[in-house]
């Protein structure tokens, strides 16, 4: 079975532009989470979606938005890009939202975003 797939793998944008990142979860997984990983730091939570509904949001500005589709795939959108948005954006899937024994997230290989 395919793991979590993300596209594109790399992206270069300029300040002020908008970007859309895509994620397909593991087959059968209904929850998708997005994390931002800046170089030298651990991943930081952005969003979690389950059954197309937002279940959690991290401390990120409104320039960040996401959605989940009926097939459980997800998009992360970032508007008005800033230099500080340069990071590895990781998508993770799980069968259900985090909680209890279901804490294991399966991560994709990420999208490396560079903002110039």
């Amino acid at each position, binding site marked *: 079975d395919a793991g979590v797939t993300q596209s594109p793998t790399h992206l270069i944008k300029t300040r002020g532009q908008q970007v859309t990142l895509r994620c397909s979860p593991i087959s059968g997984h209904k929850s998708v*989470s997005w994390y931002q990983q800046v170089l030298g730091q*651990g*991943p930081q939570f952005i969003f*979690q979606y389950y059954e197309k509904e937002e279940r*959690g949001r991290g401390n990120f500005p409104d320039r960040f938005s996401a959605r989940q589709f009926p097939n459980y795939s997800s998009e992360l959108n970032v508007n008005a890009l800033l230099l500080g948005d340069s990071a590895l954006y990781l998508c993770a899937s799980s069968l259900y939202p985090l*909680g209890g024994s279901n804490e294991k997230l399966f*991560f994709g*290989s990420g999208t490396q975003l560079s903002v110039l």
Partner: protein
Amino acid sequence: EDKVVQSPLSLVVHEGDTVTLNCSYEVTNFRSLLWYKQEKKAPTFLFMLTSSGIEKKSGRLSSILDKKELFSILNITATQTGDSAIYLCAVGVDSSYKLIFGSGTRLLVRP
């Protein structure tokens, strides 16, 4: 504010050495602690420890959780070059859908 701190930040050892990676946490309503290995991009799951499972072992890797002192350690014995990676510690908290990650420990195993 919830916080997860890992030490050391980086570590260089030779093949065959044993290493111990540390993770301490200060969170409200602790639920679980997880270890991930990040070799290139995708973090891969190693262990999850909760109140009901405070010690886990898989091959040369093992981990313990001390809920009283609020820390966990990840041990790797007889290290191999393939163990070179960033090791991430993450904590899950009640009433939250997120994992709180530490900054990671970068391990380099030299031949």
